[in-house]
């Protein structure tokens, strides 16, 4: 079974501890091996000068053309602020059933380093699982604690868990079983 790849594509140096805990959470939720991809390449031509934000859909396109060939799914993690044209910002983006996802730490609270438990690490893990869930075809869930519930603000991110509710888990397994059948 091919792995899910995570790739730090941000500007500043990443915190390895945070990325390791994100990978652990992804692996626990999706039950698929997760591998860190650490190529030095970074997306280009994604900045909207007027908005001073990066177009997440353009990053997704870039990720698609640069993904490792054996990646089942690829999630890019960045520290730049993301947007889609109709919205003021997004925490992340993925196409339903697509191969790639992107999540930004820019609006998920302070970056790790300070004293005490840092909320941004668990928020990042939740948003990564959420966007990867979309790549498996899962839509938003109305169960507030489910990781697939819509994240419109930090309160919503903090209010949910990092795992699927029963229904989403079953849907995920259904998609996985379908993908494995197609693969065979």
């Amino acid at each position, binding site marked *: 079974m091919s792995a899910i790849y995570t790739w730090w594509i941000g500007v500043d140096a990443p915190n390895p501890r945070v990325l390791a805990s994100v990978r652990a959470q992804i692996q626990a939720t999706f039950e698929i091996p997760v591998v860190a991809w650490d190529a030095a390449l970074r997306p280009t031509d994604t900045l909207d000068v007027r908005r001073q934000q990066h177009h997440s859909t353009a990053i997704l396109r870039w990720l698609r053309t640069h993904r490792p060939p054996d990646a089942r799914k690829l999630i890019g993690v960045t520290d730049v602020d993301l947007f889609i044209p109709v*919205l003021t910002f997004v925490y992340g983006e993925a196409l339903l059933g697509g191969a790639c996802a992107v999540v930004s730490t820019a609006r998920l609270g302070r970056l790790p380093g300070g004293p005490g438990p840092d909320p941004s690490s668990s928020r990042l893990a939740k948003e990564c699982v959420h966007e990867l869930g979309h790549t498996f075809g899962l839509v938003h869930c109305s169960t507030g604690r489910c990781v697939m519930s819509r994240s419109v603000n930090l309160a919503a991110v903090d209010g949910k868990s990092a795992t699927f509710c029963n229904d989403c888990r079953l849907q995920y*397994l259904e998609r996985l079983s379908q993908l494995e059948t197609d693969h065979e």
Partner: protein
Amino acid sequence: MNRERTRILIVDDEEIVRESLSGWLEKDGYTVATAHDGPTAVNRLNAERWSIMLVDMKMPGMDGLQVLEQAKKLQPDVTAVIMTAYATVDTAVTAMKLGAYDYIVKPFDPEELSLMIQKIVKQQALVRENVLLRKVLKREYKFRDLISKNAAMQQVFELARTAAKSASTILILGESGTGKEVMARAIHAESPRNNGPFVAVSCAALTETLLESELFGHERGSFTGAVARQRGKFEQANHGTLFLDEIGDITPKLQLDLLRVLEERSFHRVGGTEAVQVDVRIVAATNRDLKKAVASGTFREDLYYRLNVIPISIPPLRDRREDIPLLVDHLLEQLGVEAGRAIDGVSHDAMSLLMTHDWPGNVRELRNILERAVVVASGAIIQPGDLGLHRAAEKGSEPQGLLSLDEVERRHIAAVLEHTGGNITQAARILDIDRVTLYNKIKKYHLREIESA
């Protein structure tokens, strides 16, 4: 809330806006389509029904306000929101005057957009609830109110829909509580006679003399107590549909009378001499095996053939278990409205009970059980104890004769899933099969609803 039911049409000349907005809304589970200009939007409004429209104000040719004007003519119920990059008071006022629900400035705050769509969906659900309530009161049903995803039922609906358009007599067969009267009402509602009356008579409820008078009416003084001329059900149903329920229970004399009406389209009131002509479409129903009744001589063969022009058989609920969750949702929505209580659904354990019960009383039994549950439930989610089904379910799960291997497997998997609280990995471990195999079996036996309840 069924999100797929909410259909959103995005009208914007910028492809990038259409793409990003539709992608964002599709992830909420809504059905989304796009139109790149006004005329395309109008075409889509002509072709399909939409719940919400998000329309860009500034578009070349036909602008957003003109689209809005057309939308309100073509689909007055659609909720339209105007989107713009430049907010001015004048255009806002014009948009609202033309019936726009709201006016939003691009780019939107994700929270604001999400809340606005949720608010519209909630309002539309309230409107639907209101329509439902009126329907419950007036007992007006159409085929779209008959609920099933079962293949055999879909064939039944197809046949009934075609039969409704004809003038032929229809015989609805099915066990008690399968919804024969609801089907008859739907046939009437979708027939060319839907402006005429729908009159229902239960043939088993009355004695021969009373039923005769009920069906054909009587003249003044024809029997003790007949103080005035009374029109019978046949006359009341003129130019409409007469539903004769439990037709298998009528006496030989009435069978003969009925045969005459069917052949001659006229009859005499009890005690009358004048022939009364009627134009009535007969829909009859029974839970009895009329062929057997004909063979044993208790039902007239000629009447059987007169009635059995288009037979429609409704399968019992136990043969279409996959419909139970759908029916539960539908009935709870209805019962919640009737009882003035908001019921969100049934718990996992309660759904397990409902899925494994044998339903000898079919949909009517399900409705009665849920009606009781809506009354006694202490919270918004119905629990197993609220159903009053425990004993019945236990009894129902005892083998009645020898079971097929599939049925034994279905019951065993359902029991293991119930034991693990729906945890598939744990259930697969107990059953000693892999997760994907278990998932395929869950799908095969329609146990998904137990799992996700």
